């Protein structure tokens, strides 16, 4: 639907990442290199994931929800968590506080995800004359994804970078992290198994992302107190 529409959708898809970087103290502490490193780790992780997909998954004839295949996909999806672990712990960063580290890692990760998954369809589709709501919805989805990734990175930093955590909260941390990691499987189940339409799935993602962000925030601040 012409370049105007393309710009609108691109702004909606990639704008929040830039805004997040500029608006928060991330820009002041020059955490750009961290974001780039996280993006690179994401690309490598995705490549490994796709190799595993190609090796272990079968191409299904019908579009329905095949439980065993989806479980396999979910397990391979946990490679994402491994990747985040690597980005948070192993890659050397300049001395920035933990607070900023997980945000920068999450931001870089989500931006790479948005570009790789959404830029090409947006480019090919949104420029045509035909109008569909799809690309605006994809933009909203990428927003939700940003929140998910930052929450997951926060929980990850809690799990691996922080030594003293109140014991009662530990299971909650792991459970929330598990839910976040499994989010792609959940959405694919909704889309294929329950045959939800795209707008409904996107609204679910948006609300879930806000919910999980809230939970993560509470967990994070709860863990903050004993350290101080």
């Amino acid at each position, binding site marked *: *639907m012409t370049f105007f*529409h393309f710009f*609108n959708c691109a*702004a909606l898809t990639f704008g929040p990442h830039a805004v997040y970087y500029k608006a928060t*103290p991330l820009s002041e502490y020059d955490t*750009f290199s961290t974001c780039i490193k996280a993006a690179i780790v994401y690309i490598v992780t995705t490549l490994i994931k796709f190799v595993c997909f190609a090796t272990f998954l079968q191409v299904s004839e019908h579009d329905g929800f095949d439980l065993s295949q989806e479980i396999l996909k979910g397990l391979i999806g946990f490679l994402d968590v491994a990747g985040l672990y690597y980005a948070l712990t192993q890659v050397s960063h300049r001395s920035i506080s933990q607070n900023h580290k997980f945000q920068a890692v999450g931001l870089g990760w989500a931006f790479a995800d948005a570009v790789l998954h959404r830029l090409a369809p947006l480019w090919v589709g949104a420029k*045509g*004359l*035909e109008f569909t709501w799809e690309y605006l919805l994809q933009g909203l989805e990428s927003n939700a994804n940003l929140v998910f990734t930052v929450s997951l990175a926060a929980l990850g930093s809690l799990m691996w970078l922080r030594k003293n955590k109140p014991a009662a909260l530990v299971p909650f941390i792991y459970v929330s992290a598990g839910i976040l990691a499994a989010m792609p499987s959940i959405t694919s189940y909704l889309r294929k198994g329950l045959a939800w339409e795209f707008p409904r799935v996107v609204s679910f993602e948006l609300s879930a992302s806000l919910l999980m962000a809230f939970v993560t925030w509470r967990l994070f601040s709860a863990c903050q107190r004993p350290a101080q």
Partner: protein
Amino acid sequence: MRGWWRQQVMGQAVVVMVVMVMSMVVADAAAVVDVYRMIQYDLRGAPMGSRRAALNHHATSGFDVAGADLSRAVVILPVLEVNISSLNEFVQNKGLLGGLLLLLPQRSHESGGGEGDDSDENVGKVLVELEQWLVHNTFQYPVYFAYEDDYVKSVLQEVSANDAAGRPATATTGGYKLVVSVSEAKKIATPTLTNIQGWLPGLRAEGDNSMLPTIAIVASYDTFGAAPALATGSDSNGSGVAMLLELARLFSRLYANPNTRGPYNLLFGLTSGGPYNYNGTQNWLRNFDQRLRESMEYALCLNSVGSSSDHMWLHVSKPPENAFIKQILSEFENVAEGLDLTVELKHKKINISNSRVAWEHEQFSRQRITAATLSQLEEASELLQQTGGIADSRRAVNETVMMRKIKLVAESLARRIYGQQGTQVEVFAAGTNLALSPAYVRSWLDLLGRTPRVAPFLGKNAPIITALHKELAQYTKDASLQHETLDSTFVFYDNTKAQLNVYQVASVTFDFIVALAVGSYLIILFVVLFITTKGVDDFLGVFRKAPSRKFKSS
């Protein structure tokens, strides 16, 4: 510092990449429909038909839609709802239009055979009138035909609903956009007319060295219509061609055996250029050798013999009192009685100074060869009338009655050839190996009813010409092709078929609203994140920075 510089470089790289990639255009339509362009031609230099091919406008459902800009809209009209007089008024007032899309009723896939019901006849009449009006007018905008399938119907319904609700499709309100991307049509430089002929030599008596008399059987095979890609002309003149081929088949059987070979040569001719004053026939005759011309006893032209009517006309240009004409007529009448058909004579004088040639036999008469046209049509048609357009569908041809008419011609010719005038002998009796073959006739009628045959667009090597040539070669000797150029009274332009892309576009207003929404979302997000992470004071500090600096400097 380094970080800032890096950001600058990256920013510029991104801009360059974006500009480069933006120059690639990708098209992707919701649906693609086959459309057939209206004919574009010049008659004696005067431009006729639709003069444009490319189309890129919004769709609208009628001429009276409030708020629609007709010069930038394509009007979609089902042919059955066209009011020709009001359309004519619009065109005569030089109304500007973005384009016209005419919807033809969904074609049924039954082959002919018969009655057809009243609605078919109505559709036929409407189409004939519309085609005649279209062909004789000039349109400065593209005119296309399409078949009305479910998708097209739903698009038209939506467009009508929007128009009725006062929301016509324009650039600011969005709606359906119809795009045909083709280049403008070019003149066809050398339009070729191809005549196909076949020769069945007769048996000369012992010691007789003179040339045997020849009877010619001729039919023109090409058509003309408002949409050249749809002009399949089943009755005009697919029926004549099928009759000629069946006659060739029957007589080739008779002539295969010298014992049954008649003392007449038979010349079969499939001519082109019928709609254009039988221009191809004229050229064919001009190339006749003098001996052949002198030996020609008479020529029978077949034109439109496929209807269910029992009544046939024999059109002649020699006066009816002429003895030869009377002979031929009585031969036909004798056979016709036994077949429940009637043949009536119709005389039309030729006017040599008038270039209009209404019947094919007139071209023979102008060359002083006796000829007649057998047809179910009573009146001579005007230029570009009755030329086998869209309205002339396969269903208009009645095979059962047509088989009787073929028998009429075959038996009459056989009686003349074998000198059996006045007797009641039946040469092509059913159950013999000389029986007529309805299957043969039907298969040719089906093929011709599917093949558009407008001569300038056929070229020299069109499959239908090759097929007709091969068929005549099978039954006759010396089957040959003759290529001529159509005379310059008629000039044709190409581009007969295209694909229509239908897009559903949103309005520019919508784009603005979305831009506004996304922009405000990003600004709010920025503000929220700023305040939550750095605090309200810092945020307000952004606005207070300028004055404080001023204070400091002073």
